[in-house]
């Protein structure tokens, strides 16, 4: 109940962010119920209807193998959710732990943060590209690579915040009452970091979609047989002049999902950081 009230407070008056949230819920439902909703098998090849434009039979048209784009898009939603959530988990767990531990144990932290510095010397896409070439193309590896890329920024942010919290009186109080390091870190400091982590998570979710699509496009992301929005775009590239719908629908799905997540992230951030409150009403 309190969760619903909080949601109501965050999204009140923000019709665009609310629409974004609804869209994301829709995508999640599509991902869960893809096998039930999809009119065709996403991998089923039907040469007779190859490259046919959108119609009642094939809502989003068909691709160069005659596969139904609508069904593939529904299964693509699965990949989008898996990539998004997976990257967020990897980035927050790895980056969050690195940042918190570094700030708390300053000697060890010195070493860890230098490693983070070196990783951050690589531009994000380049790091993802190089890591991807070391690994086989698979869903898990894509998630890990994108997660690592965003773990570095997460570590930086949490390092700063933990450092600040470490000096607070409630930490001293916990130490005096005999709390151990683990207890202070995870029971006293971590709860104070939940809101910024949530905001960070929403933006990582959004950017991970774009990074994954870019990797797919370069042929270094998900395996080509996996129906993801990025792969669909990548495959349709040479047919765009004859079949522009192959570019339109998966692209629109990516854009709408990333846009929605950014809107939700903004709404979350504004509700946490009072400086932003009432900044853009409606947006």
């Amino acid at each position, binding site marked *: 109940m309190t969760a619903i009230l909080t949601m109501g407070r965050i999204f009140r008056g923000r019709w665009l962010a609310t629409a974004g949230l609804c869209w994301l819920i829709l995508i999640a439902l599509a991902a869960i119920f893809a096998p039930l909703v999809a009119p065709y098998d996403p991998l089923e090849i039907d040469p007779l209807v190859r490259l046919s434009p959108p119609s009642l039979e094939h809502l989003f048209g068909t691709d160069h193998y005659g596969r139904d784009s609508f069904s593939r898009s529904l299964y693509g939603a699965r990949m989008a959710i898996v990539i998004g959530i997976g990257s967020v988990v990897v980035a927050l767990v790895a980056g969050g732990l690195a940042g918190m531990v570094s700030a708390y144990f300053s000697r060890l932290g010195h070493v860890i943060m230098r490693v983070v510095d070196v990783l951050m*010397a690589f531009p994000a896409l*380049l790091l993802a590209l190089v890591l991807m070439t070391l690994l086989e193309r698979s869903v898990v590896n894509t998630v890990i690579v994108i997660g690592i890329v965003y773990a570095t920024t997460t570590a930086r942010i949490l390092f700063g915040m933990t450092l600040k919290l470490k000096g607070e009186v409630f930490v001293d109080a916990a130490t005096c009452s005999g709390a151990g390091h683990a207890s202070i870190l995870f029971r006293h400091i971590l709860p104070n970091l939940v809101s910024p982590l949530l905001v960070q998570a929403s933006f990582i979710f959004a950017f991970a979609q774009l990074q994954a699509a870019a990797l797919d496009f*370069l042929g270094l992301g998900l395996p080509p047989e996996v129906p993801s929005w990025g792969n669909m775009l990548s495959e349709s590239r040479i047919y765009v002049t004859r079949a522009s719908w192959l570019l339109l629908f998966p692209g629109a799905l990516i854009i709408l999902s990333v*846009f929605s997540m950014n809107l939700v992230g903004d709404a979350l951030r504004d509700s946490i950081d009072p400086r932003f409150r009432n900044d853009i009403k409606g947006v």
Partner: protein
Amino acid sequence: MLGYALRRLLTLVPTLLAASLLVFLFVHLIPGDPAAVLLGDSATPEEIASLTRELGLDQPLYTQYLLWLGNVLQGDFGTSIFFRVPVTSVIADGAETSILLALMTMVWIVILGVPIGVVAASYRGTWVDQVTSGGAMLFASVPTFWLGLYLILIFSVTLGWLPSSGFPSVTDDGGLANLRYLLLPSFTLAAPNAALIIRLVRASMLDVQREDHVRTARAKGLAPWKVSVKHVFRNALIAVAAAFGFTFAALVSEAVVTETVFSLPGIGRLVVQSILRRDYPVIQGVILVIVVLYMVINLLVDLAYARLDPRVSLK
């Protein structure tokens, strides 16, 4: 200020060394034997073994690293396995395209990002602000290759106004007019970055507007446009100037996708192609060059920032 600059420069050295080691290790962990890839399917084991020796790939890893690093410090990045020419000249070939692309992208970012951001801040809370801020966020959500493909579809295929791929050097026939080959790619690359700058300019303007010196300026009866230009805009630009620098530093690697979409002979596409060709020396060289460039530009931005806002170097 000088002390700050020197300190920052000194911290760059160990990071660079670590980055070079990482680049070297990354490349050597890539699965696939470059000698076998180079010689093709018909190669005999003897041929592969002899090429491996010739390329120095049979030495222990640390020897290979030290040799490579020593050569790199003398400006020798080795020889491309694929092109059979020095890596430095392969990179130099791509440099013109990449530098011009980055510069044109920055022009787009400045002419789109700054005015729209200022307008959004001036009309804060109105529909103008909602449309521009929302539009900026929408553009930041577009995959660059998708935008590029659509621009090709509209401006090259349908309208036939602009070329869709390639880039002949400005020293070739056509001269500076060849820059039209970069119009679509630079806009593609600029769009998401300009969107971020719009949001930043707007936020920065709003931040400064709340400060005391602005209130004082208004209170003493200064014309509103003068307050906006002299007191708000100039101070807001400090934060934005740093963002320009960081954006510029990231452009070379972000261009990987754009250069691939438009088949431009730049450094970004060189990264992807040399990865696919398993061309070790080129991968190492080009990634190291990008990383060094990225770090140096970021350092320069930091120093410029410290110059603009003296409080930074005192921390």
